[in-house]
């Protein structure tokens, strides 16, 4: 009993340490983000007033926006705001950044979740199928197709899809979009193609990883033991092999989610979806730093959290990792 209790304490401690490391990473990221906009040329006050504005007007606005304060002070003020979830006010829209993000976040979140759901739902059975027919003709044909889909970038798939389903088959209006506030079903239906465009290359990559992981695991001796107990091939695959083969994939999927959020910039542009990626692009163009900084911090947080989640899941799957 005491040993179990001690182990629990140690594990908790490990988790605490990990969380601390995550926060530290985010802190470093926040500094980098803030410093980056200090270094790149351009002045927010000038871009807001236009290049014809008088010097005194610019100076006054700089004071109003707090740009006259020293860099480190501004950084700490901004950081303090982050902790209170006060992300500042958008320069170009004059509304709180948090309000803007809350409005756009569900869009990108939905897109990411749908893409991830497609990736998981398609890649796992497909990998098992390919692994089962390993080195057969089906497998070899699949391999070529898989390589092809892996190599195609999402935005290109997006353009092809818009062309085929939008312009030729006319299943949807290219560039059309329904707000989730107006009709959630309509909103989701407009996200189907973008999420497929994101999911297909990720799916191909997952299949490649999982297929080879399954084949590696299938050669291990515990598989023979499982067969010696009278299990069918499918039972052996699902009960024994899959769990062990999932470990490399969990890490890949966590990176995929982070990549999907960051990659929304491109795909939202292709499909004309007003999500996070879209405001990031327009804010960069407008030098709307509070918004850009907030979005980048959000992406950084997703990356860190997903990494942490992958770590937790791997620990859960493989007890040997827990003890390291």
């Amino acid at each position, binding site marked *: 009993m005491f040993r179990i209790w001690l182990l629990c304490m140690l594990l908790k401690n490990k988790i605490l340490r990990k969380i601390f490391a995550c926060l530290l990473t985010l802190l470093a990221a926040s500094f980098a983000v803030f410093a980056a906009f200090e270094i790149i040329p351009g002045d927010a006050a000038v871009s807001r007033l236009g290049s014809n504005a008088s010097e005194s007007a610019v100076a006054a606005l700089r004071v109003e926006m707090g740009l006259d304060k020293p860099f480190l002070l501004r950084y700490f003020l901004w950081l303090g705001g982050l902790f209170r979830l006060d992300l500042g006010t958008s320069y170009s829209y004059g509304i709180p950044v948090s309000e803007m993000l809350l409005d756009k976040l569900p869009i990108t979140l939905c897109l990411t979740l749908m893409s991830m759901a497609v990736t998981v739902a398609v890649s796992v059975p497909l990998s098992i199928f390919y692994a089962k027919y390993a080195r057969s003709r089906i497998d070899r044909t699949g391999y070529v197709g898989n390589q092809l889909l892996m190599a195609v970038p999402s935005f290109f798939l997006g353009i092809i899809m818009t062309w085929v389903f939008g312009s030729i088959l006319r299943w949807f209006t290219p560039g059309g979009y329904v707000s989730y506030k107006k009709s959630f079903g309509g909103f989701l239906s407009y996200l189907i193609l973008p999420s497929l465009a994101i999911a297909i290359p990720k799916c191909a990559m997952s299949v490649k990883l999982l297929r080879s992981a399954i084949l590696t695991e299938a050669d291990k001796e515990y598989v023979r*033991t499982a067969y*010696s107990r009278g299990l069918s091939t499918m039972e052996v695959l699902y009960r024994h092999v899959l769990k062990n083969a999932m470990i490399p994939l969990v890490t890949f999927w966590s990176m995929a989610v982070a990549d999907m959020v960051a990659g929304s910039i491109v795909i939202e542009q292709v499909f004309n979806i007003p999500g996070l990626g879209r405001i990031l692009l327009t804010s960069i163009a407008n030098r709307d730093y509070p918004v850009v900084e907030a979005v980048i911090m959000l992406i950084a947080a997703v990356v860190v959290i997903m990494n942490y989640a992958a770590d937790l899941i791997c620990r859960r799957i493989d*007890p040997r990792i827990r003890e390291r």
Partner: protein
Amino acid sequence: MLLEVRDLSIEFHDHGIPERVVEHVSFSLDSGEILGIVGESGSGKSMTALAIAGLLPRKKMNKEGSILFEGEDVLTMERKDLRLLQGDEICMIFQEPMTALNPTMRIGRQVEEALRVHHSELDAAARKERALRWLENVGLNDSERVYVSYPHELSGGMRQRVMIAAAMVGGPKLLIADEPTTALDVTVQAQVISLLKRLNKEERVAILFISHDLSLIQQISTDVCVMQKGRIVEQGSVEHIFERPENDYTKRLIAAVPRVEL
């Protein structure tokens, strides 16, 4: 007769040139008996064992002869019929208990697995009760803790005991032990041997004991087959083989010099 292997030949086809690993092997094993197969690595003894357990791949391999288990041919049996025997009537334990156990599955689930496959009439509680009883029966006194452990948390000897419990849980008639003590140190080896002998006596399970170590065979079995290069070169009772060996190879084995042929 529980098991009758008749004129068994196994040929590999996966490297282009066919490779005969087992040639015209015949022997039989009565229920409740212990038969030892001894031979150096590559003599075909493990292949023979896997063939009896129905664990050889179905493709890329040419199998001749027959393996009659209670009169039915394991070699030509449909896969679904074979699966009814595996884990229930015929069980197998392997050389390396660490890799033979699934590293990410708790011991309890692995011990119970044969019950889950073959005895759907048992509910989870009954399965657990049987698994715990078997863990104790193979000498793991701390059965509740072992039940929730993972393989890497146990010692080599404990893992092999777990393997034996997992094999015996369904009450098999034949236990195939493929070098079960080779990966263990000498004291643990002796414990596992006496455990297998006890199970043979108490549960009336026939054991096919495969080893490269003639002294182990002498300790455990009543009859011996000596294999070399895929063939049985000599077979008979332990006394006969040890006292009046006829074959040169057997004589050399008995001379007990572990030969390394380069």
